[in-house]
Structure formats: structure tokens, C-alpha cells
């Protein structure tokens, strides 16, 4: 099955798009125009707050990570602490990144966050969307939608994608209070640590948390922190 094509939601434009583009610091290249998207991220978990959203519009030349490859240090930092500042700064230097933004705060279980991003390009075939947050009651988890093409989305159309959980593969999944930064733990966890001591130094699909409720004595987590995929739904509406 094709995971990200499960939900196809096409809606008529419900309201006139308010506002006009004011970001005039960039110069249009030949044949370029601005494309604007409203991104809505909904946390589908019971007990995994998602760190402030990282949203990137990019060409096919850039990717946040590759399954089976080692995570960048910037991604490791995001996955172990929820801090996306290094990741966004690093992405900003890449010629394949057309636009990026950070959400304003943690997205609680069941909650949503909406961001509007604008990317300048000559046509929509270049445009791809990546979203990343950390499920903060984990050691080094990532919730991500990876590089979905935006080419087929017309103005006023909306499409939803189901996102899954990944493991950065950079920190052992001990689930201890000293290593899990989220509110289910002590609040004293160290967050980022440059050591790489997971089962292997490579990004993989998260196996979920075991928790003390299910026999992992060292875990600070309870059954509430368990989740299943999809971990979030990401809705994209093209505004312009």
C-alpha cells in the first residue's frame, strides 16, 4: 500500500484567502513566482507532545534524512532534545531548500498547529514538503513526513498525509528519566548528547516505546506514551 496516498481530501476553497505577500526581500528570478501553502499538523497520539514543528519546502535534491543512513548532527539534536534551531540553520544553507519555518510551540496530544509557508520557484514540480517534530517522551524519536511532492496541488485544493514515527538511531532507547526530555520524565534529562549508542547508527522506523507498564523497569514512561502509526496527520492547502 502507499502510505501517504491514503487520504485524498479535495475541498472547494472555503474562504477567500486573506492577506497579500509582503516578503519583498527576495528578488524574483526569470519566470519565478511565489507559492503559498497552509500546513496543518495534528498530533494523533495519546501521550506524545510533539516538539515545535519544522516545516521545509524543498526540491528533490534535499532530504532531511534517509532510512538506513546515519542522522546528521543537526537532526540528532532535534531528535534528542526537540530543538530545531541547528537543523533549520543548516537547512537554510542548502540550495535545495526553498523555504522553511518553525512552529510556535509544542503540539500537544490531540492538538493542531497551523503554519503558512511561501516558496519562490518557477513551477510547482520543484516543490516538496517535509515536516519533522520530536515526540518528546522518547529518547530520539522523530515524527516526520518526508518529501511529499506538491506538484499536483492547485490553488484552493487541500490534501492530507499520514505521517509515521522514526528513530534517529543516535541514542539508546533506555526510556529513563535521565534521557527522555518530555514531560512524562523528570524534566531533568540531558537532551542532546553527541554519543551514538543506539542499536545502530542509522535512521529507522520507530518500534514504539516499551514503557514500565509493559515490563521495562528502567523506563520512566507509562502506557499513555505508547503510540501507533500514523503518529500525525499533515494537511496541506495551497493558498497561492
Amino acid at each position: 500500500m502507499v502510505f501517504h496516498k491514503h487520504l485524498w481530501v479535495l475541498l472547494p476553497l472555503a474562504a477567500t484567502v486573506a492577506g497579500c505577500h509582503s516578503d519583498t526581500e527576495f528578488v524574483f528570478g526569470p519566470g519565478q513566482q511565489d507559492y503559498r501553502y497552509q500546513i496543518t499538523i495534528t498530533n494523533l497520539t495519546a501521550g506524545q507532545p510533539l516538539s515545535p514543528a519544522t516545516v521545509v519546502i524543498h526540491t528533490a535534491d534535499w532530504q532531511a534524512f534517509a532510512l538506513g543512513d546515519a542522522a546528521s548532527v543537526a537532526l540528532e539534536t532535534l531528535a534528542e532534545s526537540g530543538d530545531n534551531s541547528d537543523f533549520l540553520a543548516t537547512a537554510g544553507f542548502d540550495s535545495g531548500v526553498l523555504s522553511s519555518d518553525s512552529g510556535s510551540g509544542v503540539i500537544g496530544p490531540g492538538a493542531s498547529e497551523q503554519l503558512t509557508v511561501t516558496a519562490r520557484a518557477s513551477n510547482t514540480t520543484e516543490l516538496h514538503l517535509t515536516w519533522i517534530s520530536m515526540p518528546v517522551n522518547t529518547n530520539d524519536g522523530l515524527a516526520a513526513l518526508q518529501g511529499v511532492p506538491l506538484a499536483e496541488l492547485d490553488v484552493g485544493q487541500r490534501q492530507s498525509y499520514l505521517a509515521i514515527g522514526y528513530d534517529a538511531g543516535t541514542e539508546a532507547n533506555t526510556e529513563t528519566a535521565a534521557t527522555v526530555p518530555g514531560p512524562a520524565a523528570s524534566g531533568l534529562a540531558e537532551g542532546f548528547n553527541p554519543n551514538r549508542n543506539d542499536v545502530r547508527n542509522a535512521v529507522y522506523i520507530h518500534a514504539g516505546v516499551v514503557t514500565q507498564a509493559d515490563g521495562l523497569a528502567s523506563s520512566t514512561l507509562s502506557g499513555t506514551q505508547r503510540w501507533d502509526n500514523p503518529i500525525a496527520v499533515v494537511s496541506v492547502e495551497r493558498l497561492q
Partner: protein
Amino acid sequence: MNRVILALAVAVAAAPLLSQAAEFDVEIHNPTRGIYYTPLLVTAHPPDVTLFEPGSPASSNLQAMAEGGDISALVAALNGVGATTVANPAGGLLAPGATTLATVNTDSATANTQLSIVAMLLPTNDGFLALNNLEVPTEPGTYTYNLNAYDAGTEANNELRGSGTPGQAGMPVPPPLDPILGNGGSGAASSAEGYVHIHRGNLGDTNLIGGASDIVSTLHRWLNPVARVTVTVK
């Protein structure tokens, strides 16, 4: 068209299609934390053939794959219906984090429009990954698919070391898993379900010298998908 479960009965009546990808690459990545794949079966076959139907009992051929990783009977049955099959592209187990590639060339076998992939998941009793009758795209390009874990429903999920022989209890334990799995578990309460379904996942425990399960909960659980497949049509 009603599909016929392979090896229960076989009907070869597919009409050739005009435009069909003659050759395509199938890249299979194991994105799990700690689950091994037994030898993979990658096959292009006619639409009226299928390896299994969810909700229905598994064939004995599928059972041999799901309980012991033995794909030989499935391969023989597929050869009998003119399928284009790549058996065991990884040359043995595919470890977590590893990737393998199979090139499928259907040549003049234009009826082989469907792609199916199966392999047993270890450690499980009768779990397997599956892509079941995907219509291979004809337009050149790269297509990505996420595969889920199924349970063949033929063996109780007791999660104990045991046998890969169909009908015998327990899990086969090849060398990479031998030093990792627990020993002396009492057995997870379970019985054979009787039909193919989405696997409920491993239970496991953290007791390596007892407990209910020989599976390790911190290593051998998963959340779907359990495989990522990239098909490149040339």
C-alpha cells in the same frame, strides 16, 4: 475477477496487456529496529494469481514461508503459472537496516503485471512482510511503497525458540538471532488464528532467562510499516 489463491487452485487465463514494464528494479529496505527477513520472494505474476487473501486461511506454501522462511514451494507454484520470480535476492537473511535489490525482467511475459513480495519476519512464529498484488506502474519513474506485517494464522504465537517446520511449535533461530533471544520462556498464551491477518506485533519481555517470551521487547517489537520498497520502472 476473483483471484485464486496460489497452490490451492490455479487458473491461467490472463489476457496479455499491451503496455507493460518489461524490466523494473525492486529495492527492498529493512527499516525495523531489530527484525530480520528470511530469504525474500519477489515475483511478477498474472492478476488472477495471489499468494494469499487476508481473512482467508493460508495455503500450505505460504505457511512454509511464514513459519520457516522456506520459499521453495511458493517459487515452484509460481513457476508453474509462468511468473517471473527473483528468489532470495539478498542471499540469505536481510538484517535490520540493510537493503537489497532485485531486477525483474518480464520480457515477453506480458501477463505478469502484478508484483508480490513476501518474507518471514524473525523473530516471530508465523509473521511475514507482504506486498500483495501491486499493479506495476507502466510509466517510467520511481515509486515508493510501505509494507505491513501479516500473521499467517497457522501457528500459535508462543514466542519461544523452536522449529521452522510447518506445524511444529516455536520459532526458527538462525545464527544472528541465537545470541540475542532469551531462553527458557514459559510461552505466551496463544493459539493459531486460522486466517491471514495483520500481525498484532510481538509481545516479548525483558527476561532473558525466563519470563513468558524468548523475544526481547526492547529489540524485537515493531510498528508498521516493516519494509520500504522502491520500484523503479525504466
